[in-house]
């Protein structure tokens, strides 16, 4: 089944790097969206939900942690898988974000393999 992806990161360059790594991991999406912060992401998700969201944590306007909480309130994002991509690696933080509704966690720096490993389960 074709899948759609949204990359949320405040750095445009980082979004491209993530996009490239996703491509290198061999995963294919028929539609990819981008957002520069949580607010923008939520706005876009409201009108055009995606299957998978890759989301940074430390962003201006609305952080990734807050975004996860809000996305979970959206009725059309019930099945959206949200995977956090961040340099923050404390287990405490990861646990709390997973408890808030995130589906996975990838720490930066990442590799194509890591994306493959974490995203493949949601691709079927």
């Amino acid at each position, binding site marked *: 089944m074709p899948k759609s992806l949204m990359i949320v990161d405040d750095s445009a*360059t980082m979004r491209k790097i993530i996009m490239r790594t996703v491509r290198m991991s061999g995963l294919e999406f028929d539609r990819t969206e981008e957002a520069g*912060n949580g607010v923008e992401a939520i706005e876009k998700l409201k009108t055009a939900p995606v299957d998978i969201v890759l989301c940074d944590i*430390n962003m201006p306007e609305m952080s990734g942690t807050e975004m996860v909480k809000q996305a979970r309130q959206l009725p059309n994002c019930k099945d959206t898988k949200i995977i956090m991509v961040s340099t923050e690696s404390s287990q405490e933080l990861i646990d709390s974000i997973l408890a808030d509704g995130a589906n996975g966690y990838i720490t930066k720096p990442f590799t194509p393999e890591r994306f493959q490993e974490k995203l493949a389960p949601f691709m079927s």
Partner: protein
Amino acid sequence: MDKNLNLTELIEQAAGKIPLLDPQDSKDLQEIAQVFKQIESAIKELSGCEEAGRLQGETLAHLGAEQIEKLLQADTENSDRILEELTQAVSRLQTLSQSLFQSAPTPTAAPAPASTPTPAPADEFQPITIVQEDAPLVQDFINESREHIESAESALLTLESDPTSTETLNQIFRGFHTIKGMAGFLNLTAVNRLAHVAENLLDRARKGTLTMVGLAGNLAFAAIDMLKTMLKDLQTGLTQNTPVLPPTDLTDLIRRIQDCAEGKTPPETQEPLPDVRQDVKLEPILQPESSARTAPAASVSADAAGAARQTIKVSTKRLDDLINMTGELAVAQLMISEEVSKTCHTDSDLFRKVAGQSKIVRELQELSMAMRMIPIQGAFQKMARLVRDLSQKAAKPVIFQTAGEETELDRTIVDKITDPLIHMLRNSIDHGIESPQERTQKGKNPQGRIRLAAYHQAGSIVIEIEDDGRGLNREKIRKKAVEKGLVSEHQELSEEEIFGLIFRPGFSTADQVTDISGRGVGMDVVKKNIESLNGKIEIRSAPDKGTQISIRLPLTLAIIDGQIITIGSQRYIIPINAVIQSLRPAPDQISTIQNHSQVVIIRGQLHPLIPLYKLFGIAGAVQEPDQALLVVVGEGSKRCCLQVDDLIGQQQVVIKSLRGLGKIKGVSGGAIMGDGRISLILDVPGLIELAQDPAAYL
């Protein structure tokens, strides 16, 4: 260490094999695939080296092996490309392996403390070459990092007055953090390391275990400066496809930042100017100013982050082309409407349509002009930083205030105004503002005050630099000017004339050449710069009260308001701002002096007369000055009279440069008129210079 040797050997092996590789030969391919797999596992086994580098190495080796798999599956179509990529991968592995070994601790080295995630310091960074496939991303990285650095810098300046603001600290932290992350992925190890230690420093401040004043603040500024340099080098490397060398003092800076972040710095150097900052806090007047300065900066960074698709970047070349074309369109439009009003005045319908079109074209032209306009904020921010550094260097605490940063003017003008502003602010701090002791003795606030403001006035932009220092010393200026032979000892000089002396070439009153100013480049250069922008500069000063310099600039360099004049059958344009008056002289106002040149007496003042018809060699013009019209042009005491046949009218014209003709004294450019003919724009300062030497045109 054996493992390292092994890895180096493996990489060398791969490097040796790839150029000889036959993409059709599966045995060859399997061999090299094996080497890549060995490299991958060798890198995995490396311990204690930088994590980001290790992952990159692993990925490179892994991808290399995969590429070869593709070749094995007889993907011959892309074999050239794949071989090319393999070569690049190996060369990156070579560079990477060197830095990996350097960052891996030797057995004798003390283990890194577990609490600091900072990788062990690399003593030296390798020159890097940007691989072709990364080039677009690296370009993005440079552009984006510049924005982060700019906003971090302005936030750091805000921090000076409010060192504990969490939001500001976060903003700076995020800038370094993002740069670090991006640099890591792009193999820009040196940038990555610097951003990393700077991030750590800010993290400490964010957590409240360090205050960003004194040394810590200076180090953050130093990190920003270093990043700027490195980005510039990176840009050069990218454009010219040359290796990028790390700056020589980088390792030292990283070490100092790291020491400071770890609290290893001797306490006595931590606070070089403690009293200044307390005073800054107490000064109520600074509060609104500093918040005014922060607000636009913060919104800029939010824009840069969020509105990825709301703004686009356009090269200035394209913008200039657009403006030029709209200028041409306006001229073409003008020709049509003149034609219509001449020949088709009975056709009111056509007339109305053409008038409607004219209006649209005019609006289009205004719009295209507006695209070149940028707020002066960027230049002001640079100045805030400069004043901060200079006042520390000179040990003269200064409160720096800015106003009107949102004032917009032509991008070219903003770029060219920076140097003169730097120069004048240097003068202010070096010569204007007194030492705190001297100020206290005079009963002034020990902190000096410098104000930089921009505002619109009568179709121009005014930039003012004001200080509350000792003011210009009339006697000293006069004495110096006599010494330099600029004026004679007994010459009567008005205040305006005395102040005007400091703009004369080679004039400098600084008793001593200091580190800050007095390097022989004087105010004459400032004045030249301002004049090249069609601007004017004025000085007001009062002893011990301070000095105010105001610069009046046109909104744009692309259009001027012109007075159209005729000489014979030719038309010329005089920039309106240079015109003082026009008159039809009485015969007794004109007298001829010894070298056959003429002067005009207007209200008791002598003005040299330039007969333009002679200068430009125009036949059929009015020859007798008392039959002609005279236009007085110039400024201050530098004036002259231009002899013309008639004044036609005033009009805005689009300036076209006379490319290929070089600099012609007396003419600054050309413009296409409504009827399609070309008129030259007169260069008034050039004409005044010509008037000093009548032999040139008589």
